[in-house]
């Protein structure tokens, strides 16, 4: 049984275990908060990778799922009593809403060229942003609103941040393994085939639309869950969750970390979140750091042109090459011996 588990799985489990222990060594508030951000955006970026990396679908409105999740949980806990039952209800609402929106966006545009999905999601996200600003009685407009999360029993309440940290970490690890299982399943293989050559998959007798819609729904649901975690961790929801920069963050994390690798987006999330943190400190040094979107935009453009595989993708490539060379060497020496 144990032998069938991949070697990389043990590495991931070891890293996850270290992350569990991390807050006991470094428990400053800002650090815990930053790590929680890394986990939530890691989940968000993984959901983006499912589309961009595994299926070749570009979404420019991924923020709408994130925002839907955040608003669902916020509104549920704000209007209803703050109990665990309602927390659960809010999460369920977020997942269902995310799935429904992703389904309709998918069936409308996924039969067309990839441009259409990008345009439609961009427009839909801006529609949700307007909705959040205008539907003031529920969303409090651009002011946003704070809400309370249910109180934890007994001594746990004093370590609330730690509990949220663990919850986000466990969610991320579970989602990571779940999605990896999905991408290694026959369904995942078909998705990769669609990315590589749509016409060929179609001529092999597969209907492409259902696969694309399924993955867009899965991605929407996961992204919505990331929004839920984000809202829970800051206990506040504002219209910024629908902003284009949320989508851009996911894009950057996925591309810098490595498209189509799942672990890449998590690493990307770590890099971007920590870069955000330290760059905003630098704004006293030079004004250009206040306009960090420019820096990120330029890094992003350069990454798309020169570094399309990302960090993890490039590493995997190198490893594969080395393995290949080793095998070649072995082959040669055995050939020599044979002759």
């Amino acid at each position, binding site marked *: 049984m144990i032998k069938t588990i991949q070697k990389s799985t043990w590495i991931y489990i070891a890293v996850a275990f270290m992350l569990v222990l991390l807050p006991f060594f470094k428990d400053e508030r800002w650090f815990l908060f930053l790590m929680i951000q890394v986990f939530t955006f890691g989940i968000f970026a993984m959901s983006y990778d499912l589309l961009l990396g595994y299926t070749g679908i570009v979404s420019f409105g991924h923020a709408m799922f994130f925002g839907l999740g955040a608003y669902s949980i916020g509104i549920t806990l704000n209007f209803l009593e703050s109990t665990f039952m309602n927390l659960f209800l809010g999460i369920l609402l977020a997942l269902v809403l995310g799935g429904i929106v992703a389904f309709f966006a998918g069936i409308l545009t996924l039969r067309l060229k990839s441009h*259409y999905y990008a345009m439609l999601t961009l427009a839909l996200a801006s529609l949700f942003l307007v909705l959040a600003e205008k539907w003031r009685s529920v969303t409090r407009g651009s002011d946003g609103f704070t809400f309370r999360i249910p109180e934890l029993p007994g001594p746990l309440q004093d370590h609330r941040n730690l509990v949220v940290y663990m919850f986000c970490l466990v969610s991320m690890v579970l989602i990571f393994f779940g999605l990896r299982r999905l991408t290694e399943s026959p369904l995942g293989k078909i998705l990769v085939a669609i990315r590589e050559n749509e016409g060929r998959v179609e001529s092999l007798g597969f209907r492409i639309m259902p696969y694309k819609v399924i993955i867009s729904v899965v991605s929407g649901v996961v992204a919505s869950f990331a929004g839920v975690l984000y809202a829970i961790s800051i206990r506040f929801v504002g219209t910024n969750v629908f902003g284009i920069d949320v989508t851009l963050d996911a894009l950057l994390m996925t591309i810098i970390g490595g498209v189509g690798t799942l672990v890449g987006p998590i690493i990307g999330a770590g890099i971007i979140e920590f870069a955000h943190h330290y760059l905003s400190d630098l704004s006293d040094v030079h004004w250009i750091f206040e306009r960090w979107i420019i820096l990120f935009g330029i890094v992003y453009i350069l990454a798309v*042109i020169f570094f399309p595989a990302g960090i993890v993708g490039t590493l995997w490539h190198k490893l594969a090459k080395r393995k290949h060379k080793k095998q070649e060497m072995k082959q040669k020496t055995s050939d020599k011996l044979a002759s």
Partner: protein
Amino acid sequence: MDLFLNLAINGIATGMLIFLIACGLTLIFGLMDVLNFAHGGLFAWGAFVGVWAYGITQSFILSMLAAVIAGLLLGLITEYLIIKPVYGNHIQQILITLGFMLVLSELIKVVFGPNILAASKPPYLDGSWEFGDVTVIKYRALIIVVGLLLFLVIMAVLKFTKIGLIVRAGVMNKEMVQALGINIRLVFIGVFMVGSALAALGGALFAPSSGVAYAEMGMEFGIFAFIVVIIGGMGSVPGSLVAALLVGLSNGFMAYYYSDLAMAVTMILMFIVLIFRPEGLFRVSGVSNK
């Protein structure tokens, strides 16, 4: 009646501005299969350059000219730096142009300062004409006239000149045009620059009418332009005019009666088109959307 006409004129003027962005977008797409998400950024740049030039020269014509020149240059830079390196790779093109869009709108804040700029009309275009009980705001009439003129010029160039013939043939089948010994890339750069200049001119026209220029307007109008291109059909110039007027009018009327629903109505229009006629109202043969 008065209200109806005023709203209609208002909507048509907005539609004309959207058309100026959309027609470049649609031609670029038809020719090279490139969807330029940075196109809206040129609209915002046009607005800022126009306001800045008007502040210096106090001449409306010169400010429009400055915006057009800025658009041509930015179009050339965009094509050379952003589109060319990822030529032929769809996903990379979509990704990179969105990144450039953000850089363009942030650069505006660096060059012109982070604040909203106030824009003013020249005195001879301020005010309105009265026909009985109908008041026509002069500046809006100017936008409509300019938009219509440009549409006619674009159509005439496409229909009656050799360059137009090459462009139209390129939209239908670029490999064939290339095979006939025409450097399609050069044609493409030209169309890209002209399309960018049209978007910039649209921005320069828009700023005095709304009274302000702000960096986010690029994204706002860019999204409208995408919707228009989807409704009108990729690659079709008349299609984008009709769709732009449709979107402008529905937006104008809804903004008056239920302003919160204005955006939603535009989206519903797009959904209907996507469900029943995904290739758009005006299909151009040779441009596939699959």
